[in-house]
């Protein structure tokens, strides 16, 4: 017998789908939470980025890379997506899963995973 239980199968979505502006408005609400964001991987090139004030100057290491959701940008630390070139990458559409963290009253994202979007 095949049980009709599709509605209960699968892993429940543990990430909060949001955007950087929402995090920037109420960073405390998101701190420590895993979030999912759609946007672009910019690598180390972010001269034209619009960083929210609560995200600015939160580059933790020299290897941190930049994510843009189209309106805002922020640094992502902890690890790097395999196969994407931070030095010379053109923007790559990605779905980013990350944990919101805080340092010096400013927020950044800690890498969990990236899925390159078609």
């Amino acid at each position, binding site marked *: 017998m095949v049980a009709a239980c599709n509605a209960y199968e699968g892993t429940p979505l543990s990430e909060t789908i949001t955007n950087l502006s929402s995090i920037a408005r109420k960073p405390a609400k998101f701190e420590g939470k895993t979030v999912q964001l759609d946007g672009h991987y910019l690598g*180390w*090139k*972010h*001269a*034209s980025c619009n960083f929210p004030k609560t995200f600015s100057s939160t*580059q*933790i*290491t*020299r*290897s*941190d890379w*930049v994510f843009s959701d189209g309106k805002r940008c922020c640094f992502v630390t*902890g*690890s*790097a997506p*395999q*196969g994407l*070139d*931070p*030095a*010379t*990458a*053109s923007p*790559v559409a990605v779905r980013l899963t990350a944990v919101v963290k805080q340092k010096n009253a400013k927020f950044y994202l800690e890498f969990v995973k990236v899925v*390159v979007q*078609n």
Partner: protein
Amino acid sequence: MKKRLLFLAGCYLAIWFFLTAPSYAQVAEWTFMVYIDADNNLEPFGITDLNEMEMVGSTADVNIVVQMDRAPGYDNSNGDWRTTRRFLVQQDNDDNTLSSPSLQDLGEVNMGDPATLTSFIQWAEMNYPANNYALVLWDHGGGWQKKKAGAGMGKKALVPYRDPGNAFKSLPFGGPSAGNPIRLTGVPSTKQFPKSLQQIQRNTTGRYDILKNVCSDETDGDILYNHEVSGAISSSGVHLSLIGFDACLMAMIENAFPLRNLGDVMVAAEETEPAPGWPYETILTELINTPSMTPADLGSTIVEKYGLYYDAAADPTTLAAIDLSLISNVAQALDEFADAITANGNLWDAVDQIRQQADKYYIPEHKDLWHVADLMPQISTDNNVVTAANDLKAAVSSCVIDYYSYSPDYDNSRGLAIYFPDATNYNAHYGEVSNGIDFMQQNGWDEFLISYFDGAQGNGEPGDPVIDYGKDIYEPNNNLALSYGPLKNDIYYLGYLIDDKDVDIFRLEIPAVSDISIGLEVPADFDLYLIQPDGIDYNVLASSEEYGTIVEEISGTIDPGVYYVAVTTYDNNVSQSNYTLYVNGIEPSGEPVVYNTALSYDFGDPGYYIWGTAMGDAAACLYQLPSVPAKLNKVYFNIQDLDAGGLGGDGTFYLFAADYYGSLLEDTIRQLTPPDTGWIYVDLSEENIFLFGDFLLSVMYDGFNTPGLGYDTTKSFGNNLFFSTDYEGGYDEDPGTYFIRAEIEYYVSGLSTGTPPEILEPDRVVAFPNPFGDNADLKYTMKRSGDVEIFITDMQGRTVTREVLRNQPSGLNTYRLIGKDLSPGIYLVQLTMDGTVYQKKLIHR
């Protein structure tokens, strides 16, 4: 008047000397050079660090000299200059404003160019002589990865492959003349080239493109690679007392080993560095206060001050000072450690545990080397392995002068990392010795990794690297030197792009003016380029970059010459699928073509076959030529002494050719005196040896001194490595890179000697793969629509299948032969179309 001119000239010289020469006439104790590549998003931190240096400033004993390149868009402070300037750092008390006068403004300079680094070192030595020189490379640092896309675009000269035998010179024709340009109807490329196509510009001397890197210049799209750093320092002629990397991830044995003769101490981090980098104020204050400190003292001071700074900040990081004079001892101990594990043969699960447990970093394939050795005795009781592990730990401990780590994750980190991936994440180019990293050339860690991958099967690890070259037998045809070819009419070349950084290059020789068509059948958005080197650079003559289509095509009239066809993609998501490349319309020439395979060998070229004989083991490369007799003129191959035990006196080398099925062509057998290592040339041009179609060139060895063939030292002639004792089907195969090069002369039309054999136009029918396992695709080209009969028999004449395919469309068609119901052996395929019978032999494994 003359005296006045001399006086004025003397005044100018005096002013110039005053402005540019050091303020301190004496030889200083230290000249501390910092190469700040802030032409990227780290620009604000570059400004901060230079300000930190100014809090100390130069003294009579210590020159602090800086070359700094800035970027547009990241920091507009301090005048927002965006060029490259040189400074002798002067003391001030303002930690926000730069006050040191610029001694030179070099304009925009490519800091990723090794010549720029060499120039800076030489300038500093000439103007600020000292008893000790420290060089700090300040910027991003990277890990083992493919060469950065776009690196060197338009900046570097293309160097044609010329070793050995000046391959280009042997070609009978040159490029198109200025007055007789190429005429093609392909769409000229107007947009930026794909990243993968850019990289071939700089990567044309056979080097592979995974190198450790530092100093990313965003404006110039360039970066310094491992061999470029060592090359730049070597070219400067300046011995460095200390080489520092104020950059992430550079404390690796692969990075330290090439610097062993260029400096005394290396300072670098296994982990990423916090964005502010080194605390220059405290480091330089200590140096100014004690200018007599030794290189080791300075290394320890940097580590100590860095630790104090980041302990307070609670930032997880590492730093170590490494004695470069002892790095060879570490490499030797590592080899002995790997050899002991390999000799045991039953420790691959333990190796796997160690790989998973060892301290790792931002790039998780980087593992702490001391910790790797430390874990082994906890798992294995093999005395040889335990002794080797302890020796390796001791070697690392002696080599690391001082280290710092802050984080529970780095409790077992001792300052020196190594690339230690699992099979899934292994970069298949790591072990290629032609990548310019002499650690791999002189040590056996890459071979150990391969053994581990094979040995760890059943432990959740795949047995082979993730890159499946079986899908693309032409790989790694990633640059002009390694291009596959020459392409022939109506052959269907099945290729495979690993990702959007992969580029497949095929060589195209046009003997006479031709109306050619180059087609590419693709699963999605691939692109096709026709390119031609001009000795300095390369030009894109035509391209087809249709978006999302499944056929890309370039067609038109082309003049005689040597060209290259490049296949690539912008889109990483559409790679990892097979594509089909074909060319037609190449007109023959009445002149003989000298085909020098030095331009087309590699990774099996395109197959690689080894078969056992009574005489010993052999390696062979398959060559595919048009179906006309080809005169074998010269053969050359490279021998390496893998076990360093010498080659002479033990065995004999044999050179011979065989047909596609491994049948020996007896008149080609040559017995060769056991050679020294290096290139072995065999001149057969006076012996009128003719070969036909597909054939194999083989080098065989019947001794036990394990010489290696070619540059791939993971493969040897050792009887245990090559020879498969379950050989039954006429050959065995082993992936690897073998270098048996041949200079072969043939006439594209007409024959110079002998009687032409019957030609069945086999090129209109292609079988792939062949030999095959699960299935084989017969690809055939119909000039017009019609019926096709396929008749397959085994070698005893028994019918396997006979079927008529009705109303097949014109153009390329495919028939799939399923192998699972077939016994291993040779099968004869007869394909009848357009009133002609075409035959193919297929080998089923």
